[in-house]
């Protein structure tokens, strides 16, 4: 008889993790991001990703970090299986050389390449703990007719699902110039190739420049609303840059926040100063990390530029939280930027949560489900970044691209953010109202002046137009021929609807001028028609 203990431990099968890891990532950029994270954790100073543009038939990711020692490879691929990560063993939280916060937790990141190719080679040149320099190379195969079909294996409820194979393992001579870890593949998935190639038409290929400043201009090209307009290849570059733990693109001290756009009064406020200081500190931390990601020869940097568009009123807010939540320390800080127009590109609208420097899931345009400003125009006016330095990791889903929304830390962050957003939106709503009022007044003033000009011109100087609030019962237009005045009674409201009301006044005004200016019927009809044309052109 089968018995079951009263209490027990529930485990996850390694193949489950492997299954998940092979098709886990939302986009090409998020798959590449995992390889970048591994290089970051390995204290690499540079990781180079190449796709062999414009053919995309040869993918490589090469870093100059500490490499993957052979015993780690053995544990990973042979003994314990995928997901046996020891990066944080013994409570280790930072890397040995650059003291970077360790990103990896599960040890499935390397298989992200499996989303882009069917087989790949890895080569590691590293230093053993004993001080000995070693190197090896091996091929990992994910798709071959000798590997059982995964779906079939699952259906057959096989216990140990073979999901990949390695072959041609060989220990090779250590080469200092190859120090680190390299992955390369010529067995690229057709889907990846096709998607990338489809974005490089003849026209795009002819004009594409890889200089960093040209790319920045491309991303902020006014004809583009969204990065999607740049098509998949450039979109991948942009997204990868935004997600990676990299400094801002900031050639002239103008980005990500251009101070010149703020009033001096705004710049003097404590909150503004805190936010700017925070951004500068973060930039300096990223620079100190001494970490570069070079994608197809481009040194990636985070292309964020605020404000976007002319004649916007920008505002900057600071966020800071440091407390214990559910018995664990939660610490985050960040900024929120708002402007009186939609943020461009669209992908920067929302809030980006950065955990250990790495962007999780891109900018969330729902602001972690902020229900007060759903689908309003003004929700498009805000962007921000929140850097979580402690906590929240347990809320991170396996794809490192989303959060468990019922996690206590996530909830705490969410409500803190929403509280702040109330202030932000109250402020920008007020500004928007003010601006709208101002615009309306300006427009009214302009119309008033134009109407005066029209009246003087078409009455051949006989009348001047005045606008007055006259007592109740007075007609819309009052004519005083002796004094050469036509008074538009602004207190009279013949119709409730503003536009209809405006039309009635215009017709009445044209009629009275024509009537008191023209000498013959024909002249009067022509003048009326002319006045209607001119007044309506001005009004509408």
């Amino acid at each position, binding site marked *: 008889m089968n018995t079951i203990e009263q209490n027990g431990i529930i485990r996850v099968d390694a193949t489950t993790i492997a299954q998940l890891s092979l098709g886990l990532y939302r986009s090409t950029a998020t798959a590449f991001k995992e390889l970048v994270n591994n290089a970051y954790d390995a204290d690499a100073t540079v990781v180079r990703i190449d796709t062999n543009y414009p053919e995309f038939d040869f993918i490589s990711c090469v870093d100059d970090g500490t490499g993957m020692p052979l015993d780690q490879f053995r544990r990973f691929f042979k003994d314990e299986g995928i997901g046996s990560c020891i990066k944080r063993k013994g409570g280790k939280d930072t890397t040995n050389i650059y003291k970077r916060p360790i990103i990896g937790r599960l040890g499935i990141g390397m298989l992200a390449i499996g989303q882009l190719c*069917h087989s790949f080679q890895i080569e590691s040149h590293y230093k053993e703990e004993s001080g000995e320099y070693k190197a090896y190379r091996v091929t990992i*195969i994910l798709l071959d*007719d000798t590997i059982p079909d995964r779906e079939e294996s699952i259906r057959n409820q096989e216990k140990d699902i073979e999901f990949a194979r390695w072959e041609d393992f060989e220990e090779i001579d250590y080469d200092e110039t190859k120090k680190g870890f390299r992955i390369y593949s*010529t*067995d690229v998935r057709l889907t990846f190739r096709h998607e990338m190639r489809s974005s490089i038409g003849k026209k795009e290929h002819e004009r594409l420049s890889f200089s960093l400043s040209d790319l920045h201009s491309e991303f902020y090209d006014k004809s583009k609303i969204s990065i999607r307009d740049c098509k998949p290849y450039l979109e991948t570059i942009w997204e990868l840059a935004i997600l990676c733990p990299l400094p801002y693109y900031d050639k002239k001290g103008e980005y990500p926040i251009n101070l010149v756009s703020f009033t001096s009064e705004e710049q003097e406020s404590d909150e503004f100063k805190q936010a700017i200081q925070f951004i500068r500190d973060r930039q300096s931390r990223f620079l100190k990390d001494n970490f570069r990601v070079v994608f197809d020869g481009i040194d990636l940097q985070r292309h964020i530029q605020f404000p976007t568009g002319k004649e916007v009123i920008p505002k900057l807010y600071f966020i800071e939280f440091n407390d214990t939540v559910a018995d664990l320390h939660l610490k985050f800080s960040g900024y929120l930027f708002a402007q009186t127009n939609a943020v461009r590109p669209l992908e920067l609208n929302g809030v980006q949560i950065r955990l250990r420097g790495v962007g999780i899931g891109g900018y969330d345009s729902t602001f972690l489900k902020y229900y007060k400003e759903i689908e309003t125009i003004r929700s498009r006016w805000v962007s921000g970044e929140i850097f979580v330095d402690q906590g929240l990791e347990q809320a991170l889903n396996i794809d490192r691209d989303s959060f468990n929304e019922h996690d206590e830390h996530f909830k705490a962050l969410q409500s803190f953010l929403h509280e702040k957003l109330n202030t932000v939106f109250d402020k920008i709503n007020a500004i928007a109202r003010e601006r709208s009022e101002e615009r309306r007044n300006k427009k009214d003033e302009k119309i008033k002046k134009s109407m005066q000009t029209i009246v003087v011109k078409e009455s051949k100087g006989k009348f001047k137009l005045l606008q007055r609030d006259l007592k109740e019962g007075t007609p819309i237009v009052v004519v005083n021929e002796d004094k050469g005045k036509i008074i538009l009674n602004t207190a009279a409201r013949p119709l409730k609807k503003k536009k209809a009301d405006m039309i009635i006044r215009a017709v009445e005004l044209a009629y009275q001028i024509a009537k008191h200016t023209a000498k013959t019927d024909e002249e009067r009809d022509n003048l009326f028609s002319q006045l209607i044309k001119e007044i309506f052109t001005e009004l509408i």
Partner: protein
Amino acid sequence: MRDIDYDKYYAKHCARYYGWLPAIEKYKVEFNRRSLKYFTLCARQAIDVFMLEIEKLLLRDESKRLPNVVICEKDKNVALEILNLVRPPLKEAVIQGALEDILLFQDDNRTRGISPDTYVRNREIRDRLRIKMLSERLKMFFPFDIINFDPYGNFLNPDLNRNKLYQSLRKIFELQEQVSAFLLLVTTPIFDIHPDSDSQLRIDFESNVSKHKKIHDVLLSSVHTIAYDEIKNKKRIAIGFAKSIVLAAAKSTGWNCEHQGIYVYQNEHGNRFLSSVAKVYKTHVSLDESAYVEDIIRIIKDMPEYYSYKDSLKNKEVIEHLEKIKKYRKEVKNEYRK
């Protein structure tokens, strides 16, 4: 061999500087080209590409990239290094694979009728289809103005009949059929020559001497002998290489050659390499024997030039030129970071 530091390999740069460069300049003027279409099997340092750029033989387009430069590299690691050096200036993708396999690809039962864009579970077939794809792509790039055939292998080992490099050279001549002329640079090690290759060179040499009185006479007046073994090794191989490899492949595919120079240089380990530079042009169906004889005579009289490793280290002009290329290469990298 490939672990040699080409950035300090001045003897090889002598061949580039004194041989390749003037010949390419001359070709550009003669055929009135604004920019050239260039195919190369360059080493990881891509010196030839940057040399042609600084000498304005390759021009960048409006996007500051080099169009019409195609690089093929067999070794994945080296291909990566080339990518890191020449990307993004290069406009075309690097062709990663063995040139011989790519050029000589022929469908078999597994690939016939299957498009390279087909999803296939079997990895071996996927590999073959990839070569098929590269083959189709490379063929689309032909013809070129300059072909720099500087492969890993040795033309003179193994024997000619089984030599895939020689077959590849023939294929290149065939694929160039749309043009009337081009410049061909071919490089090979000339140590470790296979006995069969050596015999072939000897047979071809003796056949030349007996068949062509002019060659016989020039040999006597220039090198004072017609005996293969009595001729200095470098010259003997230069004549043999031109006759049995370059001219043989050219003749069999309807081309004539006019050798502009043959350069022998030595690496730091004392091993020697030969680089031949020839203008190749269309000939009539009835092969022009006199042109062929004239070419052999030119080689006997004036070729090869020799650059020893030791002497090259003192060659200020060549060292400075190579330094200039390296400096430029670095500038190009930095330019894209702005």
